């Protein structure tokens, strides 16, 4: 791989990642936003997290799959339970990874 091309690509990636992070706080933080806009923005965290999560656990090898071959979906159940109980980050992440690693070990064994 040509490392110079990778280097220039990284600079481009950095630019297109930073600008969308910057523009809203730069221009909106000094303004009074209308109440409906604020209410809409309060829904954004939940919506964006779910929109990133669902495809990663429901779609397996290009198809919606809720069978046992889709480990990510089934591992989500203990992960969700632990997240609900502990309201932390470490315990659910550890449980989820252990569930997937354990299932892979059993299937491979």
């Amino acid at each position: 791989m040509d490392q110079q091309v990778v280097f220039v690509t990284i600079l481009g990636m950095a630019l297109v990642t930073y600008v969308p992070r910057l523009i809203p706080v730069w221009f909106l933080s000094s303004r009074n936003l209308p109440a409906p806009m604020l209410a809409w923005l309060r829904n954004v965290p939940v919506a964006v997290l779910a929109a990133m999560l669902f495809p990663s656990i429901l779609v397996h090898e290009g198809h919606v799959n809720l069978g046992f071959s889709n480990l990510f979906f089934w591992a989500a159940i203990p992960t969700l339970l632990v997240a609900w109980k502990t309201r932390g980050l470490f315990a659910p992440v550890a449980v989820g990874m252990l569930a997937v690693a354990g299932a892979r070990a059993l299937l491979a064994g």
Partner: protein
Amino acid sequence: MKNAPWITAGPARPGWLSGLSRALPIVLGYLPIGVAFGILAQKAGISPANTLLMSVLVYAGSSQLIAVGLLEAGVSGLSVILTTLVVNLRHLLMSAALSPYLRKWRKVELAAFAFELTDETFAVHSTRFAYAGANKAETFATNAVLQTVWVLATWLGIVIGQLIVHTQPLALDYALPAMFIALLVLQIKDRTQVGVAIFAGLLAVVLLRAGIERWNVILATVVGATLGLWVTQWTNKSSS
């Protein structure tokens, strides 16, 4: 709804110390993802210097992992950059969502804050700001620790990548989904938002299956958040 003390506890300690303690749970989520990125970049043939540079300058986990896959597949640099733009455009919404809390910040502080706005720092800050406002020392301490950890985890991954061959049994690829589950649980405040989450999540899947691969997250977020707003306004009207 009950929340973890690390989100709700008041500023009894100095801001920077409080910021450190708030970073800790994410550190444990970042480590496996950063390590996974380092390993995969190493295997893809990206030099250690470029791998570290990406974690310093881009600092956006999922897009870095996607970029590694594309570069390995021989996709052109311009396509990688355009894909990164679309994948990371969701930060536009996150930045907008945090802006009401940052009214008193100077421009240079906003510029520094925006550079370290990731899915995870967003999830923590948006929950924290809603409870206690935006404390600068605390916020910057959290961000500085987390990006340092991200770069160190990347380096660790590069080292590990040179040692082991098979990484699949470690389930590193589940760190990100598991973290999103945990962050989602912390974020949901009422029943409407449970609906918003399920709707936006399923819509993202439907759009993905319809062939809208790069835009599905942004579209699903906008439609889901808007639907939630309508439901809230409609319930408020009918109850008043």
